[in-house]
């Protein structure tokens, strides 16, 4: 067996996994719908660097699912975490321009602890009060959820022993990991959508809000303040 045969064999295995994964077209559709919506949301942002970064988040989410479909489970979780970090990082940079430019120049990193800081982070009451006051009661639970989901994804990224058992070293279809991935994706996207709306919704052009409203009312109508802002029924 030469190197071409070797990789061809791996590719064949990967393609088998791909065929099994795409049987769940409904879950794939749901993840795609979220990435597509995040991309559409980026179209509404005024600031070009923020727009670009949000597009990268959408792209990263799609990459994560592509990894999953090929059986690269650990890479899928890793990409998902990266998308999550970048999404939250974008929100942080949107209010810290100096850090944003340093990051673009490669002189600064996205610091998770700063993002999640309970007093001054982007999932703090202070943040909600500044950009979408009516969400300040909801934001605390999102902070907790963000920490929890980040921790879980990190286990796959850092290679905790337990996760090696879960994701394996051999390329083979793993239904449990697939289910786990879609659950984590749902949680990640739910937090990203919340914080994106908390930060931007009130500052968007009314035509843009109108254009996003159908999707948002479907995904976030259970959050009374967002629903009411979009012209939905009051609590």
């Amino acid at each position, binding site marked *: 067996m030469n190197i071409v045969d070797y990789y061809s064999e791996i590719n064949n295995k990967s393609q088998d996994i791909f065929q099994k994964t795409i049987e769940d077209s409904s879950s794939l559709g749901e993840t795609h*719908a979220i990435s597509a919506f995040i991309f559409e949301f980026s179209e509404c942002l005024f600031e070009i660097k923020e727009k670009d970064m949000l597009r990268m988040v959408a792209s990263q989410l799609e990459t994560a699912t592509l990894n999953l479909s090929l059986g690269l489970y650990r890479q899928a979780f890793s990409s998902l975490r990266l998308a999550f970090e970048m999404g939250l990082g974008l929100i942080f940079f949107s209010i810290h321009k100096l850090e944003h430019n340093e990051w673009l120049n490669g002189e600064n990193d996205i610091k998770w602890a700063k993002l999640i800081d309970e007093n001054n982070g982007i999932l703090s009451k202070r943040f909600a009060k500044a950009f979408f006051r009516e969400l300040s009661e909801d934001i605390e639970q999102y902070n907790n959820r963000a920490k929890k989901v980040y921790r879980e994804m990190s286990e796959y990224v850092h290679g905790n022993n337990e996760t090696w058992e879960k994701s394996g070293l051999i390329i083979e279809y793993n239904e449990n990991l697939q289910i786990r991935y879609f659950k984590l994706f749902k949680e990640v996207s739910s937090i990203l959508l919340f914080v994106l709306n908390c930060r931007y919704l009130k500052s968007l052009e009314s035509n843009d809000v109108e254009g996003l409203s159908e999707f948002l009312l479907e995904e976030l109508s259970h959050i009374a303040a967002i629903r009411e802002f*979009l012209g939905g029924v009051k609590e």
Partner: protein
Amino acid sequence: MSDIKLRTESIRDDEFIDLAVTNANDEKIIAGLLSSEPCLLEGSRGTGKSFLMKMAHLDLDKNNDFISVYIPFNISSLINTADPLQFYHWMLAKTLKTLLNKLRKKGLSVSSYSKGLLSNDTTEDDETIENDLKNIVKLFENSYKNKLEINIDTLPDIEDVKEAIQEICEENCIKRVYFFFDEAAHVFRPKQQRQFFNLFKDLRSPYIVCNAAIYPGVTYFGDSFELIHDCLYQVLDRKISDTDYLAYFKEMVFKQIDDKVKSQIDKQGGLFKTLVLSCAGNPRMLLNTIQNISSFKIAEVNKTIREFYLTKIWTEHTTLGDKYKGHQNLIDWGRDFLEKIVIPTVVSNEKSSIYFWIDKDIPETVKEALRLLTYTSIIKKENSNIRAHGRLGTRYEIKYGCIIALDKNPYTKSVEIEKIRSVRQYTEFSKTHSEYDNIENLSVAILSDEQYQKSLESMLQQSIDVLSLTNWQKRKLKEENINTIEELYILKEADLIAKIYGVGPVKARIMKNAANAELLEYISG
């Protein structure tokens, strides 16, 4: 106290299954919503129409043979377009956009935006039916977003839309697409409601089923829509005389409360029963009162019932007048008539408990006032074909809670009237009554568009002082002679930036948003 969900909209899809409780009538309604016939579900506010629609929607969503689309119409500034055709197109575009989102979620369509995310393919030249639908949406959106004159003949018509949906069904082995329209009759003005029902009827096809929730009293179908012929008409009504009434509501409440409250309710069954009877079949009212009770003691329950059914429920009714200014007098008259005449007469009649009958030939204005009272569910039309002393009339049920709340001790009063609450025992009101004369001169054109427009105009004429702006911002606006909400509303952000020194894009946006928010707040009712 438990975190109680008062509105269906506040419940996440994954929480529904844990909160759902159904009785035989609910199941019949759900079966109707799942059928291939379009269905209208009528019920007062808070009776659970949205919940049942959502249950049917989620049930269909699990089945790959169907596409189910839930459309909560929202209020947008675009809703106030003067052109009736534009409004029709706005509704159609919203409906189709929600369908497109659903197709994407089901994996039947790929976003053209993100198609280029992982490949370099950014073209949108796929001749897919989803793209046809997208193009239809775009054309409709352009017709109302741009203020330019649009040649209506160039727009796709409803047959194009139906054809596109049929092709989606055929290509994807889907039997039918279901649309669940929620809040349409609440959000829209009468003229718009008539157009909504035109659309509802126009969408009839072997591949499309439309279902919608409507309210008693304030729904306007228009001339071309016939309730009996154009849909399956169902009424959501939970009668306090139903044998499973108490058990049904207990199960519903127990799904939302913690063990501590459950144990209190089990110990104080009589008090709980009073609360359940008080709501007269309205889950939101029951949950609202349960949420407000700190402990299940007689004094606390009495206080809650009095607060809710003497104050809150009537406040809600009166605020209808804020929404429809031209009808404030009629709404106030209805309240007075019920509070000062009907309820005291019914209460003093030892045999009648909670029902009253009214002659069919009462003035139209009285009928309209009663209709508005059914919307807020203070009264419920029980039967419109009842004979009393040879004359035909309508029998109404007064909200149980509104009757017992008049007593200092509602719980004791409840125990008393519970024994005589037969529908056959009612107080009669003939076609003449001195109180009717007081509303003779009021307009019968309830909730007319003209009146709505009038009240909207008066709101727009208000000073910018009412807006959430800083004093500096208000002063700057006034210096430029922008004194009313309307004067601010008609300006663009660019105008503000050009006109006012010190105002850039950020401040201009804040100023414009304040005016828009006020308008949205107003038309939200």
